[in-house]
């Protein structure tokens, strides 16, 4: 993944809000992840249209955070999920 990659969920992977537990859930083949609040905020912006740069811009605006500070974290988190086969670009 690079800042201009456009991430999307791999086939067999779904991200949804879990009302029963009041939290987001990442559902994958025979696995289930319960991402923390920060990861969930990033994943909510993964829509197969936004680039990682655009996702970072949106998060910086949403949380009034310095863009340079969060850019590395966003890229690393998405790369980790891509390495585990959960995201594609």
């Amino acid at each position, binding site marked *: 993944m690079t800042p201009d990659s456009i991430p999307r969920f791999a*086939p*067999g992977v779904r991200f949804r809000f*879990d009302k*029963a537990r009041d939290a987001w*859930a990442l559902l994958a*083949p*025979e696995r289930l992840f319960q991402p923390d609040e920060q990861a969930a905020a990033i994943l909510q912006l993964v829509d197969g249209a936004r680039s990682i740069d655009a996702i970072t811009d949106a998060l910086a605006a949403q949380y009034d955070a310095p863009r340079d500070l969060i850019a590395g974290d966003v890229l690393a988190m998405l790369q980790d999920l891509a390495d585990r086969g959960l995201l594609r670009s």
Partner: protein
Amino acid sequence: MIAPPMALLAELTHRCPLKCPYCSNPLALDRAADELDTDGWKRVLDQAAALGVLQVHFSGGEPMARRDLEALVAHARGLELYSNLITSGVTLTEARLAALVAAGLDHIQLSFQDVDVASAERIGGMKGAQARKLEAARLIRAADVALTVNFVVHRQNVANVGGMIALAAELGARRVEIAHTQYYGWGLANRDALLPSADQLQAATAAVEAARPVHAGRMAIDYVTPDYHATQPKPCMGGWAQRFINVSPAGRALPCHAAETIPDMDFPSVREHGLKDIWERSDAFTRFRGTAWMPSECQSCALKERDWGGCRCQALALAGDAAASDPVCSRSPHHGRVLAALAASDAPPPPLLYRASR
């Protein structure tokens, strides 16, 4: 508050064209005439989603034997449930797959009995099965559906583990499961024919470890070890009635698919009770939940909330008491029964007893 279940195992039918001698279905199979109908299953899915279930595993038997499978997958999708189809693949056609994908199916787990065709068809008891399974895998990949390939391994095919992993990669699987047989029901009846020796287990584990770096980043390898060779029990089902709810073809709710072997337990029917009530209040689901039921060797153990006392059905099968500690555990007073079964794994295997209907 009792945490809700994460997953529903929907055993739609016990009907299956294969006769695998380690089948996880009970020895007394449910008849087709006793199966829940479409509306009955839809109601189960509604109640499961409301309770907090996130994933539904459509299983069997062969779930493709149900003509309403597509309707049930579509219903699950409408409830935002993640749907997984666990199939032998022998009856999958391009048209049926397209209908399942259109209904919103998320993932398919396809089982193989071996890589060697003659061995695979002898174990599964169905001639011509392997070619159909290979074709099913091709169709699934062509449709870009996430695929897990599953091999149940035992002393009659465990030498081929390296080849099994290679076949899964060739078929484009994103996950492969190398799952040692679990010894309940049919598997227990065939234990002396299936339990691998310590040397076989060691070779299989080495083959899995050698394959991991080869497929890293492209295919995950899940390896389920045979717990008879362990000294600590597995956290069966992630703890009794903690993560899973299983519904049998006839509509009985079970904490695991082997639970019906426990003789003095009444399993509530989804025809008469709601899933929430069953999960939170029934004797079947509450009796072994948590740690209060545990015998003293578990109560004093630092691992009691890691392995949850192991498996209740195994305690019943080997110690004659579902409330005993799992005899796989070296602290169990019944551990000698596991050691005795292992001693038999060096003798020539008896003939296979094939799964059959009543």
